[in-house]
């Protein structure tokens, strides 16, 4: 006898090894055919206990550990920790060091956004932009390699300044690089912005309303793409960002397309900042006097900066010894991944991939 024919929801394990989960994230999908009814993220596959390791190291030794915290923009991890330590010990950083830091941070932001551009296009099926984006990123990697010898984990920004001065050919080569990238971004836009398939796949997909974004503490480009004009470079100023002229782009709709456009806009703004910083780069020291056995006075501080994935925060509790009692890191992706169950349900699996890509989640930042 034939049983009753009915449809059945089934569970798909997306990850930990899946091409579009950007690392080792696992999403448990409850699906009805192509439709995603429920998403549940499982994390922890990259948990390396960075915070615990930091508790057993001196302040200087923490910086290379935090390189691994968010390796796509390792400069900003270096910087956040250095900023927190400087706040604790009230160290005055020389002006040239601040300029170098801003240049490096913004270069790193561009590099990160270029990766976002490439991977998002790849997740939506366009394989070619990824190679283009990496080609331009190479100019920035060359600059970093020239400065600190590393291409991914830099350990360049130190407590009280930067590790070493830039070589003489850095400034002309950096000018050349930002000029090339500035020319290429309109090319990217020409490749995808008006492409009907791209628009069909991104516009109106994964809409994140501003209230939800703020409630879940989304930050950075994702918050601004939802129309909330909140950029820590302006609204909680750090370093010397108040000296530069730049716009904070926002987008009204908060869908995948807006998040993509916004990041391309941010690349242009970063190019503006780097141009001004190269122009005003003063001579002088690159590092304040910080003892090797650095002992900040007892106290605690939470420092946060705007990196390419949103708010990057470091909380340090010091008891006056040369090792921090507690280092707590906070990455933007941690909160953005929490949002996936909120806006990733009731859509098709292809949309979920697009949403995940548009959040630009990287897993080491989530698992730490």
């Amino acid at each position, binding site marked *: 006898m034939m049983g009753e024919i009915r449809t059945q929801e089934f569970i798909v394990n997306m990850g930990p090894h899946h091409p579009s989960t950007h690392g080792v994230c696992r999403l448990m999908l409850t699906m009805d055919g192509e439709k995603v009814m429920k998403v549940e993220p499982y994390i922890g596959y990259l948990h390396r206990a960075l915070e615990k390791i930091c508790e057993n190291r001196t302040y200087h030794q923490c910086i290379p550990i935090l390189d691994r915290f968010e390796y796509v923009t390792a400069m900003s991890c270096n910087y956040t920790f250095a900023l927190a330590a400087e706040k604790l010990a009230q160290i005055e950083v020389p002006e040239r060091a601040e300029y170098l830091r801003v240049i490096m941070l913004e270069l790193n932001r561009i590099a990160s956004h270029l990766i976002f551009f490439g991977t998002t296009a790849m997740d*939506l099926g366009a394989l070619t932009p990824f190679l283009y984006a990496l080609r331009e990123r190479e100019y920035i990697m060359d600059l970093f390699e020239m400065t600190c010898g590393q291409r991914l984990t830099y350990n360049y920004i130190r407590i009280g300044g930067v590790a070493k001065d830039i070589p003489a050919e850095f400034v002309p080569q950096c000018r050349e690089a930002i000029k090339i990238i500035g020319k290429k971004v309109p090319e990217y836009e020409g490749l995808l912005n008006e492409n009907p398939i791209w628009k069909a796949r991104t516009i109106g997909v994964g809409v994140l309303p501003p209230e939800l974004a703020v409630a879940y503490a989304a930050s950075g480009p994702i918050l601004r793409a939802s129309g909330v004009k909140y950029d820590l470079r302006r609204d909680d100023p750090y370093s010397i960002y108040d000296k530069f002229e730049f716009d904070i782009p926002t987008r009204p709709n908060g869908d995948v397309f807006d998040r993509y456009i916004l990041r391309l806009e941010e690349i242009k703004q970063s190019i503006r900042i780097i141009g001004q910083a190269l122009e005003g780069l003063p001579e002088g020291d690159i590092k304040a006097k910080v003892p090797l056995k650095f002992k900040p006075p007892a106290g605690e501080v939470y420092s946060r900066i705007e990196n390419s994935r949103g708010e990057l925060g470091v909380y340090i509790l010091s008891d006056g010894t040369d090792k921090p009692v507690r280092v707590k890191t906070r990455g933007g992706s941690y909160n953005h991944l929490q949002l996936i169950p909120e806006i990733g349900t009731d859509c*098709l699996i292809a949309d979920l991939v697009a949403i995940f890509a548009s959040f630009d989640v990287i897993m080491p930042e989530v698992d730490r």
Partner: protein
Amino acid sequence: MNFAPVIAVGELQPVFAWLYGLLQSIGLEGTLLTVVMYAGLGGTVFGVLCVLALFLVWWERKIAGHIQQRFGPMRNGWHGWYQTLADAVKLLQKEDVLVDTRDRPVFFWAPVIGFVAAFAAYVVMPFGKGLIVADLNIGILYIMAVTTFTVISLLMAGWGSNNKYALLGGMRSAAQVVSYEVPMVVSILTVILYTGSLSMVDIVESQSGLFFNWFIFRIPFGPIAFITYITAATAEANRTPFDIPEAEQELVAGFNVEYSGMKFAMFFLAEFINMFTVSAIAVTLFLGGWQGLSFLPSWLWFLGKTLMVVLLLMLFRWTYPRLRVDQLMEFAWKILVPITFANLIIAGWFKWAGWYW
């Protein structure tokens, strides 16, 4: 020389005549002789197509490389010319990883059916003047029928793997191929209307002369029929932007996620053969088939034109993002089907009124 009525092999006739004589001299005759001759012919076509598929894989990698500002394979031979050969040998000797929970017969036969279906179309494909295995009078209908077997193979692969991603891929491909079959066939009908014959040879013969006798220019709104055909054909061959059955970013690899070694290679080769098939049909129907100026042999014209259409499909793949599954269906039923039907009706009206040459 009484074998000519049995097999017409065009410019290759001397070779086959020699072979025929040889076989006769060792005492073969009658039906057995005919069977052996056909087997030899089939083997030749199969061999040529396998070499062609290997070439297409290499070519695609080179094109992708150059679009993406890199070189593609460069190590093995001049510009890596035997790279795919090496890959094929590697795949041949790889371990065949099998899932315990697979549906054994279904899992085993899926790649075989896909492979056979891909090659079966070439029975009636006119490679050149007289170069055809069998000139069936229902040629194009036969091709349409046989190539649709591909979808059965994909469905079997999806079901037999006992994997949710594979199943989703199989279901997607079934939906997609069935949907895009409609605009594809209707586009072809526009041409059939003007030839009055389903035979591939007749279709090519009626486009003789210079390029303005090709159906793309001759029949009213031929370019529209050509474009709709190419669009539907891209979907038939599961190429980007319609490659959702194997969308690697969503379904990992779709229907062939559990396949490895030679079985995977069969799917892979079948995919490239399919791409060549749909391009060859486009050339035969719209671009004059093997017709061309006489300074080159006819099969070279056919090959050249087909490779140009293949190039077009490859350029699509490396330029466009992928459509979503619902948008894909929408595009087929809401845009392509109405356009092709309108085109068919208009073409029929023009034919009735005699406004064509």
